[in-house]
């Protein structure tokens, strides 16, 4: 994704996030409201989870709109929003290298160790 392209929902950037968070100029070619990613905590004790994207002019409006769009039926107790262009994502091309199943490192798993029956519930 080139640096000049607007971010797409859920994609993030390959490189560093943009430093500037200026909304676009009115009447400019891309005068769309900026894009935000929405994260919702479904109930106390759980993580916030990515649930979608939306366009909003500012952070306060983004939270308000996220409530209307993503939590109409008790789907959440807390919302995070972040400008999509601020998300830095790993490159899918690196997937094999980054997320190798590490079949050769079985000792990382507890089941690798066979213990005497009497303490095997450890």
């Amino acid at each position, binding site marked *: 994704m080139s640096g000049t392209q607007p971010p*797409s*929902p859920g*994609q993030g950037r390959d490189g560093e996030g943009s430093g500037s*968070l200026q909304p676009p100029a009115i009447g400019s070619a*891309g005068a769309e409201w900026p894009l935000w990613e929405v994260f919702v905590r479904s109930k106390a004790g759980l993580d916030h989870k990515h649930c979608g994207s939306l366009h909003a*002019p500012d952070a306060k409006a983004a939270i308000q709109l996220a409530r209307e*769009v993503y939590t*109409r039926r008790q789907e959440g107790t807390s919302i995070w929003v972040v400008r999509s262009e601020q998300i830095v*994502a790993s490159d*899918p091309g690196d997937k094999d290298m980054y997320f190798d199943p590490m079949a050769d490192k079985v000792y990382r798993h507890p089941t690798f160790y066979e213990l005497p029956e009497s303490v095997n519930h450890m």
Partner: protein
Amino acid sequence: MYTQAMDLMGQEERSALEDAEKQQRFDARIDAGDFIEAKDWMPDNYRKTLLRQISQHAHSEIVGMLPEGNWITRAPTLKRKAILLAKVQDEGGHGLYLYAAAETLGTSRDQMLGALHSGKAKYSSIFNYPTLTWADVGVIGWLVDGAAIMNQVPLCRCSYAPYARAMVRICREESFHQRQGFDALYTMMTKGTDAQRTMVQDATNRWWWPSLMMFGPPDDQSPHSEQSMRWGIKRNSNDELRQKFVDACVDQAKVLGVTLPDPDLKWNEARGHWDFGAIDWSEFWRVVGGDGPCNRERLAARVKAWDDGAWVREAALAHERKRVFKEAA
């Protein structure tokens, strides 16, 4: 010059080879039932087909707010008004989930809306029919949303993950839409007046055939179907889903006490399905082509809403720019 051309040729060959490899890997992933994410490599036509389908779906949700919105101020009770408001708000939400999913393919929201407003992009032609009575609102829930659910449930397993995720969310909410419609009709049929029962039958008569057309042209006349099935964008054929819908509706109509307006509707023991009469595809193509009862009105309403809202969109941006500027100072 000569050598340069040779070099270029080499590069082109290499990149064609690379694309072939990527294509092969993509096909293998589709065959394995893998999901494709936004940043993954995908063939251009896969991207184009998805963009067309998802944006058309998003437009349908948004335009679909109009025929029902027509009845919000005239709903017969406060309860029905609250239900209808919630339903129409849901349709707006569904449009937003879908626009966001389509945007992941690299086309902006404004571009998609521009295509809708210029008449270049299509939306489901069912919304070009008018809602003449309150019973129409119930029948839209029962038949139109019922057909939509039939179409949409398989899309929850679409190979393009952002679309599949949006569809999971939509299907969860759509079930409320169908049930509220049936409930409204059932109330009129079992507790209403003769005039109300006649009204429900009339609405059923008018919406039945357009609902069957919602599944799209017959399989042998649906040019994109085969490729879409191959790509896992589509999971069932048009005719297969249409039959499933007819089978489900026959029983529901019986419970409701309405007659489906098709004299050829007959149980076929051998097939284990209901046979139904011929669909008037010339009507379908006429409405898709722009000459349905409400095509111009619907599009004009969307364009007006967009134009009238321009100052709000601009003012909100100006407000934020001022805040950022003040903060910096």
